[in-house]
């Protein structure tokens, strides 16, 4: 694996760690019903992302 790919994967993982931190912070300011709606949307987005992953 070349250096560019290693950097690219490292940045992807870092992005996702930051996304998890943002997710935790965001939850603190939402009502339970808002978190339900957010999770419903995320699951639908995940289903689309799984289809895109399989199409790669």
């Amino acid at each position, binding site marked *: 694996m070349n250096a560019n790919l290693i950097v690219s*994967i490292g940045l992807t993982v870092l992005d996702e*760690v930051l996304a998890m931190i943002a997710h935790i912070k965001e939850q603190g300011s939402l009502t339970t019903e808002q978190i339900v709606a957010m999770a419903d949307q995320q699951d639908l987005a995940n*289903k689309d992302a799984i289809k895109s*992953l399989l199409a790669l």
Partner: protein
Amino acid sequence: MKRFQSLFVVAALFLMACTSDPYKAAIKGSSDVSQAVSSAIKITAAYYSAGTFNDAQKAKAAAVFTVVTDCNMTFRKAVVGVHNAGQTSVQAFLPIADAFVVCTQRAPQVQNDAKLKETLHAVDTAIQGVRLAIASAKGTKP
């Protein structure tokens, strides 16, 4: 890096458990699983594009993501149902969390693939953490 993700999930679960009722703890845990799956999909795509994962590994990961997402949606629907039925005790929510964990075990096993196992580690941590968060929540007596 992926271990940091797991650490954040665990930290979030402990923080929520200290302050939440079991309904909110269950919903936050479910939301954390959704977020962990989202991150794992992106990391899997990056690994596949870099040639670290082959077609079979990508397909296996996608199968795991599909099962976990379906189980998580069912789990959240059941949690909302119990809440709407007026139940507020920790014991009312624990069986649903147990059913969620059992449901996710239908996913293909990745124990023999270290790379795949590591990529899915944060998702597994989030799933296991849901029950812990509910059990640690401040519910009413049944």
